[in-house]
C-alpha cells in the first residue's frame, strides 16, 4: 500500500486546486441568479389561473427532475449549437461556461419552482386578505406580508438546492470546463494517471468543507429569521 499512497501528493494538490474554486463559484452564482428567476416564472405559472400554463410548468418540472444532470449537460452542449446553427449563428466555440450555466439554470429553475411554490402555498391566504383589508394595495400586501414569510419557509430548501447544485456542478469537467474538478483531472493526467486517489481525496475534502460551510450558514440564517417568525405567531 505504501508505494501507491503518497500523502505529499494530497497536500500538494490543495494549492493547485484552490485557485480554480473561482470558476466553480462563478458557475454557482450565475446559475443561482438565472435559475431563481426561471424558478419564479415557473412558480407563477403553477399558482396562476391559466390551466395550460400550469400544465406546461408541471410537465417541465417532472421532465427535468427525471433527467440526470450529465445527460442534460451533453444534450445542451451538443444540441443547442446544432439547434442555433439552423438560424445561421455559430456558437460552437463559445466559452464552455455558457453551456454549463445554461444546463444548470434549466435544472435549478425546475427545483426552485417547487421550492418557491411550496413556500408560497404554505402561507395562509388569510394573511393576504387581512393585509388587503387593512388598506394595503395588492403589491404592498405581497411584498410586505406574504414574501417575507414565504422567504423563511423557503430558506432550508433553498440551501439544499444550492448544495445539490454545487455538487452536480462538478460534472462540468466532462465537457472540458476547467473548474476544481477539471483541474483535478488535469493534475492526474499530468502525473501520468498515477496518484489519482490522493488528488480525489483532496478534492473531496474541499467539497466537504464547502458543504459544511454552506450548511452552517443556512442554519444560522434560519435561526436568525425564525426568531421574527415566532413574534408574528405570538402577536
Amino acid at each position, binding site marked *: 500500500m505504501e508505494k*501507491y499512497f503518497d500523502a505529499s501528493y494530497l497536500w500538494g494538490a490543495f494549492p493547485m486546486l484552490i485557485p480554480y474554486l473561482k470558476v466553480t463559484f462563478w458557475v454557482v452564482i450565475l446559475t443561482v441568479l438565472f435559475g431563481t428567476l426561471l424558478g419564479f416564472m415557473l412558480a407563477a405559472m403553477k399558482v396562476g389561473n391559466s390551466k395550460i400554463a400550469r400544465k406546461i410548468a408541471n410537465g417541465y418540472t417532472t421532465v427535468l*427532475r*427525471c433527467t*440526470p444532470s450529465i445527460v442534460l449537460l451533453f444534450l445542451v452542449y*451538443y*444540441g443547442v449549437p446544432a*439547434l442555433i446553427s*439552423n438560424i445561421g449563428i455559430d456558437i460552437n466555440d463559445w466559452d464552455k461556461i455558457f453551456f454549463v450555466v445554461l444546463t444548470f439554470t434549466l435544472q435549478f429553475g425546475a427545483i426552485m419552482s417547487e421550492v418557491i411554490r411550496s413556500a408560497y402555498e404554505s402561507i395562509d391566504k388569510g394573511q393576504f386578505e387581512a393585509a388587503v383589508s387593512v388598506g394595503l394595495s395588492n403589491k404592498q400586501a405581497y411584498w410586505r406580508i406574504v414574501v417575507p414569510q414565504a422567504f423563511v419557509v423557503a430558506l432550508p430548501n433553498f440551501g439544499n438546492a444550492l448544495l445539490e447544485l454545487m455538487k452536480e456542478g462538478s460534472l462540468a469537467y466532462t465537457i472540458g470546463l476547467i473548474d476544481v474538478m477539471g483541474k483535478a483531472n488535469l493534475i492526474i493526467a499530468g502525473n501520468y494517471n498515477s496518484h489519482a486517489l490522493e488528488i480525489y481525496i483532496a478534492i473531496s475534502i474541499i467539497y466537504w468543507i464547502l458543504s459544511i460551510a454552506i450548511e452552517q450558514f443556512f442554519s444560522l440564517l434560519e435561526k436568525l429569521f425564525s426568531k421574527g417568525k415566532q413574534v408574528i405567531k405570538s402577536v
Partner: protein
Amino acid sequence: MSSQLDFEFLIDTFFVALSGVPIALLITVVAMTIALPLGFLLALTRINRLPILSQFSSVYVSFVRGTPVIVQIFIIYNSVPILLEEIFQKYDVGMKVYDVNPIWYAFIVFSLNTTAILIEVFRSAISTVSKGQLEAAMAVGLTTLQAFRRIIIPQTLVVALPNICTATVNLIKATSLGYAMSLHEITLRAQVAANPGYNYVEAYIDIFLVYLIICSLVEFLFKLYEKRLSKYKLVIA
C-alpha cells in the same frame, strides 16, 4: 455536425440505450436492498445515541452528502482495486484485478451513497413516530423485535415513502455516472453507438427519453404503493 436529425439512427440507438436498462435497474435494486436495512439500523443508532456508531454515522452522512457522487465513484474506483490486488497476492487467488466486473464497484459506491441518504430519511421518519407507540406495544406484551416489525416500521414507512421515492429516482439518475467506471449501462452504450458518426445529439435524446420513461414509471409505482399504505395510515389514525 449535421443540423438535421438522423431519425433512423435515433430509433436504432433508442433500443441500444434500452438494452442498458437492466444493468441500471440491477444496480438500483442491489443498492436499495443493501441500503434500506443498513440505513434503518444506522438511523436507530443515531436516535438512540449509541456511543461510537452514532458519531461514525453522523460523519459518514456528512461526508457522503457533502461530496459529489462522481468524486465518490473515483475514490472507490481508484482505491478498492489496489486493496483487492494486495489481498489477491497475499492469499494467492489466481485472479487479475482487471478481470473484476466494474459492476461490483458500482454496487459498492451506490450502496454506500444510498445508505447515507436513507439514514437521514429514516431518522426524520422515525422521530415522527411517538415514543408512546413503542411503550404501548411493549405494555401489551410484544417483544422489541415484534414491536418494531408490527408497530413502528409500518408507521415509519408511511412517512418515509415519498423520500425513499426521491432517493430511488436520484439513484437511477446517478447510475448514469457509471460510465466513469466503464460500466456498460444506458449512457455509455448510447455514447459508444454515437461515436462512429458523431450523432451525439440523437444519442443524448435517446438517453434522455429512456431515463424519462424509467423514472416516471418508478414514480408512478411509488405513488400506487403510497396510496395503499396511506389507507393503512387512516386505520391507525
